[in-house]
């Protein structure tokens, strides 16, 4: 491998680490290849090498391939400590903001973060990450539009925890007509363009 190749590769490895670290769910190597502008085989090779390097260095985390994608997770060796931590950080109740966000996603899925934001009027980012981390919502698809926004929906765990067979068993809201601005927000949200006018208007509200 020439020096230049090594250098390019080092940057790509760093980018790979950065992406995998912030990912909420296992990342498909095809998407990684696309983001890093590298052949799929190269990216897969890098992931394997990274995974081995972490193991050799004896880190408390590992990079594993699960459900067709790569993700960081804690090393099985330190599970006892992680369990203690998880048990310690219990917060018993769901906030009303989180419940409202979950309700919007349950009834209107699939929908993007932008659409949730436009209905709730505030940035739902933190709340949605929590809901996702708890396994109540998940990324279900990507919007066809140029922005390719991630679309979210509820999970099987969500149904289970609410004691529902399917989404069809949710109490109906059909007889409830949402206000015009909500309908409009949803419709606008579906037409996702790079410079999203909704995003702009949210900024203005803030100003």
């Amino acid at each position, binding site marked *: 491998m020439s020096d230049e190749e090594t250098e390019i590769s080092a940057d790509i490895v760093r980018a790979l680490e*950065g992406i995998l*670290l*912030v*990912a*909420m*769910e296992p990342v498909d190597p095809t998407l990684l290849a696309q983001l890093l502008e590298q052949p799929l085989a190269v990216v897969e090779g890098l992931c394997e090498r990274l995974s081995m390097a972490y193991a050799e260095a004896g880190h408390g985390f590992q990079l594993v391939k699960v459900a067709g994608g790569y*993700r*960081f*997770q*804690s090393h099985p060796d330190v*599970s006892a400590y*992680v*369990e203690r931590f*998880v*048990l310690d950080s*219990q*917060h*018993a*109740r*769901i906030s*009303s903001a*989180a*419940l*409202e*966000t*979950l*309700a*919007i996603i*349950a*009834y209107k899925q699939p929908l993007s973060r932008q659409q949730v934001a436009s*209905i*709730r*009027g505030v940035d739902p980012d933190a709340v949605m*990450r929590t809901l996702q*981390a*708890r*396994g*109540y919502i998940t990324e279900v698809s990507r919007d066809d539009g140029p922005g390719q926004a991630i679309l979210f929906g509820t999970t099987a765990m*969500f149904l289970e*925890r*609410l*004691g*529902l067979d399917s989404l069809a*068993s*949710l*109490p109906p*809201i059909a007889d*409830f007509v*949402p*206000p015009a*601005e*909500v309908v409009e927000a949803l419709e606008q949200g579906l037409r996702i363009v790079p410079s999203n006018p909704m995003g702009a208007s949210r900024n203005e509200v803030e100003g």
Partner: protein
Amino acid sequence: MAYEVNTPVFDGPFDLLLHLILQEEVDIHEVSLLRIVEAYLVEVQRMQTFDIEIATEFLLIAATLVELKTRRLLPGKADMDLDEELALWEERDLLLARLLDCKTFKDVAGVFSELVEKAGLSFARMAGPDERFAELMPDLLEGVTPVRLQRAFMRAVQPKPPTTIDLYHVAPIRASVAEALMELLDELPSLGRVTFAQLTEAIHDRIAVVCRFLAILELYKQGRVDLEQSDKFGDIQVLWTGGNDVGFEAVFNIDDYEG
């Protein structure tokens, strides 16, 4: 001639005043109050919606400026009431202190902006524990029934109550420039020549007086009145020149100023 201010929308009267004094390096002494008022009106016209709060704050400051300006035109003779004089110095100091405070925090905001930008280059890991620990994770949905979820949805799509305009820090507004303008359009044609003192003799509220003053300036800008001030501290003579075609155009123009 309107004083052109080529900057983004101003956030408030302090913003504009700071800009006028510092960025544009304009001495209040040199630029007439009329120009400052015009600069402000230009900004107001650029606003999509009229903000009564900003206008009110501006009027209060405009009133102080009027007094400063008037006092400055007096060539050093202390024929002013001592109490009035002290009050004026006090107001000036207060205005200066507020401007300095405002400037300080504007500079802090600049540093905050840099910090936010720098911090924004990193993204936090928030994925949480994987499914191996799912059993241990607290069930946030405990006690949440489908009906509660339905209610939460209703709450979420409920139209939000409009932001209320809280007038806690100003006296109740009994006047607006638009109203004052309407009144003057009604009164002036029949009066012909009148002094500003006469136009405001029945008004005891300083804000209302300033509203009338701004309305007169607006009429002057529209070419509907002539203003004369024979001696430096004298009363302003207002002369109606607008004919009898009072109505749509003038009122239409000031629509933007209404709350």
